[in-house]
């Protein structure tokens, strides 16, 4: 007997690690017609073909939750060892960094070299950075194949990913230049919220899932 899970390979796993608006991500996946699972169990993570790490929260809490659920090991093994595609959103993307200064000092997953630093308020620059900011796309593949130039995306954060230039795929300007998208091989992270980006966000997801060959299985 082949179980359903062995049969179905076309899905994406939304990792539920306690902080995050994963229902918003699920709504988008449902709208676009992709099959998905939401889980935080080790065995589900080992089986899944690709991952989304959503996130609304504080860095320390997120890392503690990942530790408590014992997910850091299996996730790193699948993503770094077996090169499975992963998309991190907002806090999910910041977790890729080596460490963060958000409310103390916390170690991250360390998948992409770099650090999470605080945005500093100055004249005309209010922190957190909230709102629709136009981004400069440096690498069109895989996220920006379906969108027009200079798209507006929804940002909501008070810390940013300070990383090497070759890992940055898109930037936005808020006082200084900050990384809007980081990517390295199979790892893609977005600082903004494509699941809350209206049509542009949907186009972005479509571009990404086309690039990892996830098939549309039926519209809700």
């Amino acid at each position, binding site marked *: 007997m082949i179980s359903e899970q062995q049969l179905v390979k076309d899905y994406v796993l939304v990792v539920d690690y*306690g*902080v*995050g*608006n*994963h*229902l*918003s991500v699920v*709504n*988008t996946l*449902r*709208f*676009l017609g992709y099959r998905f699972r939401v889980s935080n169990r080790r065995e589900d993570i080992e089986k899944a073909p690709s991952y989304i790490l959503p996130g*609304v*929260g*504080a*860095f320390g*809490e997120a890392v503690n939750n990942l530790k408590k659920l014992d997910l850091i090991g299996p996730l790193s093994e699948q993503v770094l060892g077996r090169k499975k595609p992963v998309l991190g959103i907002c*806090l999910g993307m910041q977790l890729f960094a080596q460490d963060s200064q*958000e*409310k103390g000092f916390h170690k991250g997953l360390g998948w992409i070299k770099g650090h999470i630093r605080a945005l500093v*308020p100055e004249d005309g620059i*209010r*922190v*957190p*950075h*909230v*709102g*629709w*900011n*136009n981004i400069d796309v440096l690498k069109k593949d895989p996220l920006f194949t*379906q969108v027009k130039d200079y798209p*507006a995306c*929804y*940002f*909501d*954060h*008070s810390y940013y990913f300070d990383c090497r230039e070759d890992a940055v795929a898109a930037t936005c*300007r*808020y006082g200084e230049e900050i990384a809007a998208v980081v990517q390295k091989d199979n790892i893609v992270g977005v600082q903004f*919220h494509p*699941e*809350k*980006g*209206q*049509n*542009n*966000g*949907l*186009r972005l997801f*479509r571009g990404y899932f086309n690039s990892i060959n996830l098939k549309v299985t039926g519209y809700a």
Partner: protein
Amino acid sequence: MLNKRLIAALIVKEGIVVQSIGFCRYLPVGRPEIAVEWLNNWGIDEIVLLDISATPQKRDPDYAMIERVSRKCFAPLTVGGGIHRVEHIRALLRHGADKIVVNTAAIKGPQLIQEASDVFGNQCVVVSLDVRYKAGRYEVCGNSGQDPTGKDPVSMAREAQRLGAGEIFLNSIDRDGFKEGYDLKLIRAVVEAVTIPVIACGGVGGPRHFLQGFVEGKATAVAAGNYFHFIQHSPIVAKAYLKKNGIDMRIDTYSQYDGFDFDEMGRICKRDDEYLNNLRFQYQPKEVI
């Protein structure tokens, strides 16, 4: 460049969206999921959904409603009403909210702001201040504007920022529903006191008032409740008006209203007959993402 935000504040009373006048009279509009679906299709930048009957009825937030609403909402959804503990916030985020608003609970026990921002980050916590002008001074009121606290909005906004609030949602009880424009003096005072974004609300009668909020009030974002209901393409028209007046706005919707003229209230004027005649021969394809 960061665009300015236009926010719809949906006031929900006993499960239906209402227009609110002075925090005491209410006109029914309809089901929240339908209001959200339209506003989302019309390119609203953010939706703030305030359940004003949760705290008076001493019940938890209506999670089922939020889940229904979030299915139709591809814009950021901020939810308020009935939040008294961190568990409420966690549950709301699980049911489709992206940010939360606290009002009465933040006034009664400010440590909630701190606890919430430690777990969910500052950017997730919006503090709402309902302000009444009385005897020559401004005063923050809790419990849907019914309990005066005697506190000054400027010092309370500063305190909220210190505790870890990410945004201030500033509403004027006296202006609410009167279509006379924002209380610009109040907005300016709060904006200058804090370094976090300030959302102005209360009193919008037309797109002109949004412009005043940005230019004279220096607000980071503008919000309205009643204005958005019963007007075709209300967010797009307001954005087109603001854009024409030099404010950076995001207009991603199919209809954009560029090339339109506006009257002194900010309403659109009729295009000339030739333009309207030619419209019949234009092909308007529907985009499939």
